[in-house]
């Protein structure tokens, strides 16, 4: 029986909450961050995940195998010193051996097999492929890093200062952008090849890397920063004007908070994605240049120069061409697919 004066209110509704009811309100899961969300989305994408593991596998192989392999990429097996004494080591087919090695095997000793045979100078081809992969990956990675740094600096300056600085920088960017890049890359490499960088960097840390690879880096640094700087400038310009930045400022957020919580997360995903997609294109370009004979110096191999060298004996030793070709394609393909996956997972604008 309800009384009119109680206004049908149930007194029980105003009792303190029990422990059980309190537990209901407790946060069951920690709130997910942007990064965690992205990783979760990335792992849901089987193609990107598989590509990621392929890349990790190739990278680990290219680092570890040269440490444990009994042959080196430049060692000519038929040579004693610099003189060629045993031509039987040249152009070995896979799993065949040179004469002195064959004698050892006949005597019961173990000789490490030449998985892919040897090349025309008697160098173990498997380790050359592994080493070439390492060079190609390193060139791709560091070239992208250089592009990222230059693009980041120029793009931020352009976006931050605006006005005349922005105008001048963007006109320069426009012109470099409309240059036919590949032709300019070839031309630059052809010119840099003549400048004898090896002498200039003698005695410095750079000497180990070699003049040709440095000139590759210079080429990348000169030409490919433009799209990165355009991207970063655009990001900074558009993010500065976003409503949520204004809202954060109106709510009393400090500049550092806005940068940390709003600008960085939104900027960084775009930067990472385009850097990830830059790596395969750098590897592509390096192999192309090496194929034209403008890439790394002999005896240092890269996948492109290995393919180029193999072209001469293609009818007798087609596998020498097929193997580096497959490795390049695999690297570029999996990096591209992984980059696409990254973009799908980390670009918040694509999600809605």
């Amino acid at each position, binding site marked *: 029986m309800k009384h009119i004066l109680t206004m049908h209110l149930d007194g029980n509704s105003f009792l303190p909450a029990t422990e059980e009811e309190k537990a209901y309100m407790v946060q069951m899961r920690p709130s997910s961050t942007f990064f965690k969300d992205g990783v979760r989305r990335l792992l849901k994408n089987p193609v990107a995940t598989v590509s990621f593991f392929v890349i990790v596998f190739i990278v680990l192989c290219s680092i570890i195998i040269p440490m444990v392999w009994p042959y080196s990429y430049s060692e000519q097996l038929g040579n004693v010193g610099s003189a060629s004494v045993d031509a039987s080591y040249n152009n070995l087919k896979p799993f065949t051996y040179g004469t002195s090695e064959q004698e050892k095997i006949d005597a019961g000793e173990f000789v490490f097999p030449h998985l892919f045979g040897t090349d025309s100078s008697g160098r173990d081809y498997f380790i050359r492929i592994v080493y070439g992969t390492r060079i190609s990956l390193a060139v791709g990675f560091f070239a992208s890093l250089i592009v990222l740094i230059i693009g980041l600096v120029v793009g931020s300056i352009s976006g931050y200062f605006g006005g005349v600085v922005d105008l001048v920088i963007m006109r320069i960017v426009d012109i470099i952008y409309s240059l036919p890049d590949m032709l300019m890359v070839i031309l630059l490499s052809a*010119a840099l090849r003549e400048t004898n960088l090896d002498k200039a960097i003698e005695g410095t840390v750079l000497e180990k890397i070699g003049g040709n690879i440095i000139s590759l880096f210079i080429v990348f640094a000169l030409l490919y920063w433009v799209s990165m700087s355009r991207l970063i400038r655009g990001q900074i310009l558009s993010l500065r004007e976003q409503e949520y930045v204004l809202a954060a400022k109106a709510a009393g957020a400090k500049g550092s908070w806005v940068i940390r919580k709003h600008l960085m997360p939104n900027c960084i995903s775009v930067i990472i994605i385009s850097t990830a997609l830059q790596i395969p294109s750098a590897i592509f370009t390096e192999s192309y240049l090496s194929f034209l*004979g403008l890439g790394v110096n002999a005896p240092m191999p890269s996948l492109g120069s290995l393919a180029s060298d193999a072209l001469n004996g293609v009818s007798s030793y087609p596998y020498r061409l097929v193997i580096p*070709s497959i490795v390049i394609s695999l690297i570029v393909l999996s990096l591209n697919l992984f980059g696409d996956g990254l973009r799908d997972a980390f670009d918040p604008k694509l999600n809605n």
Partner: protein
Amino acid sequence: MEEISVHNQRTDRSRRHARSFSALFDSKTLGYILKRLILTVITIWVVITLTFFLMHAAPGGPFNSEKAITQAAKEALEKKYGLDKPLLEQYFTYLKDIVTKFDFGPSLKLRGRMVNDIIFEGLKTSALLGLAAAVLALVNGVVLGAVAALNRNKFVDRVIMVITTAFVSMPSFIMGTLMLIFFAVTLGILPANGEEAGGMIMPIITLSLSPMSHITRLTRSSMLDVLGQDYIRTAKAKGVAKWDIIFKHALKNSLIPVITYFGPMLAYIVTGSLVIEQIFAVPGIGRAFVKSIINRDYTLIMGTTIVLAMLIVIMNLVSDILYKVVDPRITLE
């Protein structure tokens, strides 16, 4: 007056024509075209300047590698080719010759031959190769893209996407050499040398594969976009036949984004042909270019780079303007 006469006979075709005609000449478009034109001219000038100074900055003159050459003979050679003059004077002469006569001077290594002759001789072969590859890429790409879009997420679509993804990730020289191994070495059905009869088949196909894949992906995504549009639904509701919808409405509109790819496609074909001509021994401009780099034939390197760069830059300009003219909905900044 002309405007009115166009107005009077408004058939379907002429209306469309009039629209694009007026779109081409409204002030905003004109401004855009002018801006692009200026940028193109500046780009070509930058290419010429860069090429010139890069080639002259490279140490080791063109005649250094020659054996048994006396100092006097070297000086005579340098004088003959104008290399003894100050660099700036050489530059302005070079620039003037290009602008007024389109003349790139004599080749330094192939005695008695002009760079122009070498370039245009090679360009005939290369243009045939590039044009055939472009047409092949366009036809195959559009067909495959349309088929993929119409069978979205079905088996055919998946197969097409996998193949095109693989082609995009394969450098041109790898495709070329794999084709060479398979068709010329293993099967022996096609000649490996580009100068033999039928020798151009493989280079053309190889060169077309990567642009074909790009066009396939472009056509597929834009076709999917168009198929979701209201006017397609309207056409369906009106009872228009399926193939009429596909050809008259969907395909036609989804081809517009493909135009933007013409510029990059030419750039790809030019750089691709550098190695493809090398692999298949095609006597084109690409092979001449690679040879000139190896020979350090500076005038030939400069001439070839500038001509090829001009081609690419102008093609970019044309495809950008064409894009605007074909689709009046597109606004330009």
